């Protein structure tokens, strides 16, 4: 389609006007056209794309513009399957065509500024977008400085984090493929809070699966600054059952906290001890994505404080933050949670446009992890607001039972879940 931007905007306005008039015949009539509300969404990932689509679903008269630096989104969920050789990167990459079909104006570009007072977003190339409500879903950024010797350049060349999917995922995969049998894979696990709590341990599992089948003399070392981790009992049971002694985990009591890396020597220093690895995956401490910092949406924690349910920033009115970047606790920083948050946020925004009270929010998180291709585990929780706070509903949620009785079924559900949630966000 070759349609100039100016022409597109003109037509968009006419279109939105049509929707608005259609919806208000018999009550207001005049004036609706000029009143079309505008929502701008920054980020086309789990949080952003969901927010864009669901604002449009809840009220098609709202003009929704979604801005992302890429033409598609490669998901972190299931990127461990690419690293483990079970999926191709194309299978976890989703374009924004379906969002356009839902009436979302998709813009490719990097946002460099948010004027929260003037309600304008500016792109690197100078384009500007005005909004009535802004949704920021920028994901994560890294505190490279927290580990001596680590940097973005080291991540891009020798020690990938692979904690944002795409080139990083492929680099880690390539390094594992090139590693000789008998080599050592080291994972430097991140401190809390971080994106996808079970993710590092699923990654270790699927690398172990790859080694077992292709490089059986290889070993895995996990250096962890945390005393315990998500679904730990289940992961440990699975590692023992499937991978014997291949995986060694060192926690903080035994010096698991890494303070230094040497990319030239391929060495990691933790608790005063040097460990050399053939492939080293450093997942650094994290913070909200860059634009959230630039726009003054973060507090001292490096993450974005928000109001319960509406996700409106407590730092700037009219700006909502969803997904990993927001302080959404007790919801974890997961793709599922971002999807759930964004739907509540979208409903709240539409309600505000109609001068109604936002509906009572409700959230779910369900995270599947694969220990092996036929061995799945899950953690789930239901959340609601009680006394103005988001709480995990007592008596609900929890992890899969030990003993692996549902492991095969849950491995299947993991794939079905991925198909469903990606369809919900970027499909249909």
């Amino acid at each position: 389609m070759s349609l100039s931007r100016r022409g597109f905007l003109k037509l968009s306005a006419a279109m939105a006007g049509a929707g608005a008039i259609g919806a208000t015949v018999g009550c207001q009539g005049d004036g609706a056209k000029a009143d079309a509300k505008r929502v701008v969404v920054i980020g086309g990932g789990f949080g952003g794309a969901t927010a864009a689509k669901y604002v449009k679903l809840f009220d098609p008269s709202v003009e929704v513009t979604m801005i992302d630096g890429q033409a598609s989104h490669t998901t972190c969920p299931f990127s461990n399957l690419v690293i483990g050789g079970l999926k191709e990167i194309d299978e976890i990459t989703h374009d924004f065509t379906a969002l356009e079909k839902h009436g979302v104006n998709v813009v490719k570009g990097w946002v460099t500024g948010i004027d929260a007072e003037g309600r304008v977003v500016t792109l690197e190339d100078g384009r500007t977008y005005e909004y009535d409500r802004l949704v920021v879903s920028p994901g994560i950024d890294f505190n490279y400085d927290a580990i001596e010797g680590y940097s973005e350049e080291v991540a891009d060349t020798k020690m990938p984090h692979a904690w944002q999917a795409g080139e990083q995922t492929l680099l880690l995969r390539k390094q594992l493929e090139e590693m000789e049998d008998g080599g050592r894979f080291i994972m430097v696990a991140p401190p809390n809070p971080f994106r996808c709590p079970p993710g590092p341990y699923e990654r270790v599992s699927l690398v172990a699966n790859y080694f077992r089948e292709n490089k059986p003399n290889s070993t895995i070392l996990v250096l962890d600054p945390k005393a315990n981790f998500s679904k730990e009992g289940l992961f440990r049971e699975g590692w023992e059952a499937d991978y014997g002694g291949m995986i060694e985990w060192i926690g903080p009591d035994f010096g698991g906290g890494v303070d230094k890396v040497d990319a030239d020597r391929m060495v990691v220093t933790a608790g005063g001890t040097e460990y050399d690895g053939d492939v080293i995956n450093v997942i650094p401490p994290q913070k909200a994505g860059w634009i959230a910092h630039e726009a003054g949406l973060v507090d001292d924690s490096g993450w974005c404080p928000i109001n319960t349910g509406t996700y409106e920033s407590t730092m700037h009115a009219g700006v909502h933050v969803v997904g990993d970047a927001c302080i959404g606790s007790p919801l974890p920083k997961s793709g599922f949670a971002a999807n759930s948050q964004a739907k509540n946020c979208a409903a709240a925004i539409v309600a505000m446009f109609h001068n109604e009270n936002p509906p009572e929010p409700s959230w779910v998180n369900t995270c599947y992890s694969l220990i092996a291709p036929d061995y799945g585990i899950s953690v789930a929780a239901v959340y609601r607001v009680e006394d103005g706070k988001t709480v995990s509903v007592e008596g609900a949620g929890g992890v899969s039972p030990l003993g692996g009785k549902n492991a095969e079924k849950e491995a299947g559900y993991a794939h079905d879940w991925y198909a469903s949630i990606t369809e919900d966000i970027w499909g249909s």
Partner: protein
Amino acid sequence: MSQNREAAIGRRLSTASLAAIGLGLMLAAGMSQAESDTERMEMSTGSIIGATCMGCHGFQGQGSGDIPRLAGVAKEATAGKLLEYKSGALEGTVMNRIAKGYTDDEIQAVAEFFAKQ
């Protein structure tokens, strides 16, 4: 509403509709469907909870692989199953853990929402 006013809106509508048709064609159709008022997603207890179910059960509850379809399933059937998961009468994998998070009224509301999809 006076007749004149009604007629005026009618005229504006037809102009707007023409623009809509033009845009729809240029954007390879599809867009105008979501724009119609009948497609608007309701905002209710059922839809807010239902939207979270779609994280596994797919957009509008279409289902995927072994995860069952909820769209268009009779309210009694969905509510009945959820209540059994909640009480433990029916053993699932993740659904027992999730169903326990809702009141019986919420279960009825979400079942009704999916029945209408």
